[in-house]
């Protein structure tokens, strides 16, 4: 299951160094210190926030092998007076460097689960933890920071900003992370990384184009480049091929597979397509808000 190239030092020669994580990296240690200044400050700040926000003994997952986990997760939506239960007690561990597929029918709650893992939403009950720290009850600013620095997200409908060019879309996480002055000072650095990422997904010739001028596959590749900009620890993919034809979908899956295998990027992907799910290391089935192990 976790027979993944955890030590990615061999891949440093790749066009973009997609955050090679050593097995010896401990959560909250200063392994990030060698990286860019922007990325280095954030985890420490976050760690401080974690420690104040973590209820003692809330989540018994302090082993770093488990990267992202949730315990006994409940979520329901309200429609007037009626509550519609979506997730009913989900326990899930995502290991470091793993490519996990969550499969289920429409409406089974897989997207909701992904949103909860990515702190876009908050559970009614249960806990989500990341690198051993509980993250679902963090204050909003800490969750914003977490999404900006540690989670990359891609969506079925790509969700690029129509006003920005492809390059600017890829730069969006850096634009959000930095103030005007900070961005201006590090703009060449950010641009170089964004161009490298566009090159990686084969879109360097489209850098100046607006999203509406791109095809679906190109938009999704741009979205992947955007998700990778801040060197995330986890990539959360919500039906990344759901809107694409089979061959384009395969391209996307190839890129995701490469990122996982070569750079050791942890990927959690939600899909309803068994073939797509088959590309992942591990598949969990979600049926009526509960996990059905295979």
């Amino acid at each position, binding site marked *: 299951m976790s027979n993944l190239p955890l030590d990615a030092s061999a891949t440093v020669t790749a066009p973009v160094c997609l955050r090679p994580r050593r097995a010896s990296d401990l959560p909250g240690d200063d392994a990030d210190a060698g990286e860019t200044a922007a990325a280095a400050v954030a985890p420490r700040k976050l760690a401080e926030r974690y420690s104040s926000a973590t209820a003692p003994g809330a989540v018994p997952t302090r082993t770093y092998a488990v990267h992202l986990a949730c315990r006994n997760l409940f979520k329901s939506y309200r429609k007037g007076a009626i509550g519609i239960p979506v997730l009913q007690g989900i326990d899930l561990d995502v290991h470091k460097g793993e490519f996990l597929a969550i499969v289920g029918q429409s409406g089974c709650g897989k997207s909701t689960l992904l*949103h909860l893992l990515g702190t876009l939403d908050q559970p009614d009950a249960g806990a989500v933890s990341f690198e051993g720290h509980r993250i679902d009850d963090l204050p909003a600013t800490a969750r*914003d920071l*977490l999404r*900006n620095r540690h989670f990359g997200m891609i969506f079925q409908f790509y969700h690029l900003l129509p006003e*920005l060019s492809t390059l600017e879309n890829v730069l*969006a996480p850096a634009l959000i*992370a930095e103030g005007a002055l900070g961005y201006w000072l590090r703009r060449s650095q950010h641009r170089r990384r964004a161009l490298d990422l566009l090159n990686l997904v084969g879109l360097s010739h489209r850098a100046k184009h607006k999203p509406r001028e791109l095809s679906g596959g190109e938009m999704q590749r741009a979205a992947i480049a955007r998700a990778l900009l801040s060197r995330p620890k986890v990539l959360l993919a919500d039906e990344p091929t759901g809107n694409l034809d089979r061959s384009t979908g395969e391209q996307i899956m190839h890129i995701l597979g490469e990122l996982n295998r070569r750079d050791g990027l942890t990927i959690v992907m939600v899909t309803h397509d068994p073939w797509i799910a088959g590309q992942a290391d591990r598949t969990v089935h979600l049926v009526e808000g509960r996990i059905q192990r295979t």
Partner: protein
Amino acid sequence: MYKLLLCWRYLRTRYIALVCIISVTLGVATMIVVNSVMAGFTHEMQDRLNGMLGDLIFRSRSLDGVLDADAHMAKIREVAGDAVAGMSPTVHVPALMYLTVGGELMPRQITLVGIDEKTYASVSSFGKYLQHPENRRQLDFSLRDGGYDVVDHQADAAAAKPRSVMKNAGWPWRRYKAMLNRERAEQERLSQRSVAADAQPPVEQTVHTQNPFQSIAAAGSEREPEGREFDPASEQHPGIVLGIGICGFRMPDGTDQFLGLPGDDVKISYPLSVLPVKIASHDYTVVDFYESKMSEYDSNFAFVPLKVLQQNRGLIDPETGVGKFTSIQIKLKPGASAEAVRDRLQNAFPAQFYQVNTWRDEQGPLLAAVHMETMVLNVLLFMIIAVAGFGILAIFYMIVVEKTRDIGILKSLGASGGGVMGIFLGYGLSLGMVGAGAGAGLGLLFVAKINEIADLLARATGQPVFDPSVYYFYRIPTIVEPFTVAWIAAGAVAIAVLASVLPARRAARLHPVRALRYE
């Protein structure tokens, strides 16, 4: 950084928002124009009021005045101390003026003011409104030998319509009129002789009784030294300076018509300072016009030498030779508070006999009315901008709804609620700045070209927008106060920002998941 970028992109792609900012632009432009014109008018008016009235007016409540200006002035100087820069006694009296127009006597009501020409210039800018350059330097109430302004020296030469008849004014005009009168008298004498030859003796008497002003004419000439004939071609009566509105009027096209010119004689009747009241009439020679461009003054006041008026009205004590005065105009040194000096003087003199006013008190209702007008206009125009604010609010709300998904994306990428709010507040701010900036530019341009625009409108509609016969200015006076412009612009920007608060808050509070799923 994304806030700035997205603000900029929204500004460049959402033209509907620019349309809604046009109302802010127009509101700002209108406010700037209105304030500049009102400030121009107010300044012009205050300048002239203060110029004419001096800073303080010390006035006797009696129309006959009180004795001894010098003693009063000494007391005033003692009370007010260093604050006084200059003083000048005057005598004010309502009077009737008879102007000969086309051989007809035309009575007009005026206020006759006796001024001390030596000191009056130190308290009032009266002098600079005169039409002869020498008189502007120093008035001496003697008729000049021509050289009166043909073009209004207070207006810019291109705008003012020349007053060509003024080039004849002065002694040449007086000699010409004297010659005409002599010829007319000669002819009359000849015709009377021929009538007498027809043996109708009482005709001469009838002619005299038919003239109702015969007695006045007789009274006017009674001061002439016995045995010497007054020669109008070489002599003048005491000088009088008439307000230009008394002796003329302005046509709607801006040209001036005159009923008389410097050099003409006028007859003035006023009450003597005796009981039972008697009316006296005296001849005066018009030596100049003054034009303060305050029609209230220009069509009401006539100035004569103080000594002459005191003598003619019997205001001089026959024993001591000391004259009476009705008011003293006081000019204060720069920085002195007119109100404080007024209060000190009012305390020092018995209030039942004397009244002390500042020039603002004198023209209080007028100044207050102008001030009120400006305020009301500002309030109304600001309401218009506020209405524009609601337009911005509605359009912003729609933009937020349209951008719901983008807001979800930004939040999924780690943008905070405050950051998203910042985008829309910044958007409102930049729209407000664009609108206010464009409005300020437009308004200032309008103010700079206001006269050309007025001319254009007048030509297009056939109706003068700014009727010089009403306002006495040839051009619309404007003053741009940078502080006012800044306030108006800041107010408009604030309204735009306030209008974007509600939509921005909605954007900030959008749930990321719901926003992402928004169709």
